[in-house]
């Protein structure tokens, strides 16, 4: 299969409410990624935009809206959307643009501006529930997370205290990220003492609503070798969707993510993921989701991820660093941009450019993952040098 590389990355600060519009944020991230790659817009053959529901912005056809800031005018441009999974799906789209042989250089831009939606961006999520069989019950987005977290905890006998360690770790890691919205030094007791929203979910178990953008430049092998001193290769991609009858599947395990991960491992020739992956950036909109996803990614046994966290294995200097960026819990969660932020983090980490966040031991391979739709889509990329 044709080789595809990431050759540049950029992102804005993630903030609760940005002065810039979504188009301005997109431009800032896109320009930074192009500058980092040493390329100009005229070198770009195609553009992929990732952005979550139009309802956040109250702008219809957000792809077109964001296209100028994303460098997409007068070019082959598309916008992709698989809910929260979008940020990792967008570079997969760029991968098949380039792997097809038709394009050499693709700019990927992911943006979200959640602050436009009032009184709360959660309102934009209410229509994910079935209009006839569920919405009459008055559900809100927290329900599905709380129901899944409870099922996961109960099946494995995991405590809220163990899960809270994830929030503590990621928010602390985020203190070292120059773009982070919620870096903090907290204790497990702080998390447990925060307001209970929907048992077992407390406020500090949850990532914030955010504004922000992220971008990467991706190239074919011959362009990457000519223009980049250190390309980071996309070694594997995988994605998978499960049933939207979410009450008909057991929420304790993300089966769809296992399928997506197996697809990516197979492409990358990875037989023992736990040994061959050196950094993981799983999607962590809630703290238990990091654990749930580590299990779906086959990086530990089912029910074992909490133990790894408590034992410090997933710390930045641990045996399996998880969310060294600070994740969505710490850096912030502008939906599509948050997923692509994880791809940017792998790019910087694998090139040894992550500064205070640098994972020691010269990591050579990382995995980024996002998750979304009606909690049943998994998107995975594996990157290596």
């Amino acid at each position, binding site marked *: 299969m044709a080789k595809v590389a990431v050759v540049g990355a950029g992102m804005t600060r993630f903030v609760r409410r940005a002065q810039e519009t979504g188009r301005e944020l997109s431009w800032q991230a896109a320009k930074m990624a192009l500058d980092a790659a040493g390329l100009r817009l005229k070198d770009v053959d195609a553009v992929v935009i990732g952005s979550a529901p139009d309802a956040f912005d109250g702008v219809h056809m957000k792809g077109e809206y964001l296209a100028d800031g994303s460098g997409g005018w007068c070019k082959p441009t598309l916008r992709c959307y698989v809910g929260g999974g979008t940020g990792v799906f967008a570079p997969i789209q760029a991968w098949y643009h380039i792997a097809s042989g038709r394009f050499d250089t693709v700019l990927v831009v992911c943006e979200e501006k959640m602050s436009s939606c009032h009184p*709360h961006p959660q309102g934009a999520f209410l229509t994910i529930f079935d209009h006839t069989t569920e919405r009459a019950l008055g559900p809100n987005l927290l329900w599905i997370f709380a129901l899944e977290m409870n099922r996961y905890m109960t099946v494995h006998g995991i405590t809220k205290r163990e899960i809270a360690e994830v929030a503590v770790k990621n928010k602390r890691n985020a203190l070292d990220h120059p773009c982070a919205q919620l870096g903090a030094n907290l204790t497990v007791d702080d998390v447990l003492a925060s307001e209970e929203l929907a048992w077992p979910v407390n406020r500090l178990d949850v990532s914030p609503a955010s504004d922000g953008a992220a971008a990467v430049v991706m190239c074919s092998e011959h362009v990457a070798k000519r223009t980049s001193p250190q390309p980071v290769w996309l070694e594997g991609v995988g994605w998978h969707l499960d049933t939207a009858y979410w009450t008909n599947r057991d929420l304790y395990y993300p089966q769809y993510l296992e399928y997506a991960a197996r697809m990516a491992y197979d492409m990358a020739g990875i037989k023992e993921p736990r040994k061959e992956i050196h950094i993981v950036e799983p999607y962590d909109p809630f703290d238990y989701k990091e654990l749930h996803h580590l299990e779906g990614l086959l990086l530990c046994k089912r029910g074992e991820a909490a133990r790894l966290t408590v034992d410090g294995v997933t710390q930045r200097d641990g045996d399996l660093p998880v969310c060294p960026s600070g994740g969505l819990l710490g850096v912030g969660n502008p939906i599509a941009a948050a997923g692509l932020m994880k791809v940017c983090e792998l790019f910087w980490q694998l*090139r040894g450019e992550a500064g205070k966040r640098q994972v020691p031991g010269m990591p050579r391979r990382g995995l980024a993952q996002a998750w979304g739709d009606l909690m049943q889509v998994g998107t995975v990329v594996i990157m290596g040098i």
Partner: protein
Amino acid sequence: MTVNIKQWPGTALATRDLEQGHVLTVKYKPRAEYAWDAGVAIARYLEELKAGRLIARSCKQCDRILIPPRMFCEECFRPTDSWVYVEDTGTVNTFSICHVRWDVVRLDQPQLPAVIHVDGASPGMGILHLLGEVAPEEVYIGMKVKAVWEEASRRQGSITDIRHWKPWKEE
């Protein structure tokens, strides 16, 4: 490269910037109303709810009894075969104790959403509903529950024709 960047783009606004008019904002309230058709399978489901019964569809190829009912089996990718009444009892597969509305305003009384596996449907076939007539701290996964129906004259052909599900002991 990340280490060399001193000034990252993106400007954070504070609440006071908005309150004091330091930034300009344009507001819009969409007016969009929808009428969703129930479709073939769910229309029958709603009619049966109005009659005080739960109904499912069966697929004879995968031997599943599906609830909510559907006219095609998404796994076998063929039409489902027949209507099957199921029980109005079930088991709590998972639940939450929710203290907030969608806009994070606190509720006076917590809601108890749950996934309930319905007796008579295939294993793992659950629906979303609410628990009631139980103290939140007494709910547990695996608890047997029974539907509490709205009075017949007040039922509308809606999932809310079941008021909630209450703890129940098998006789």
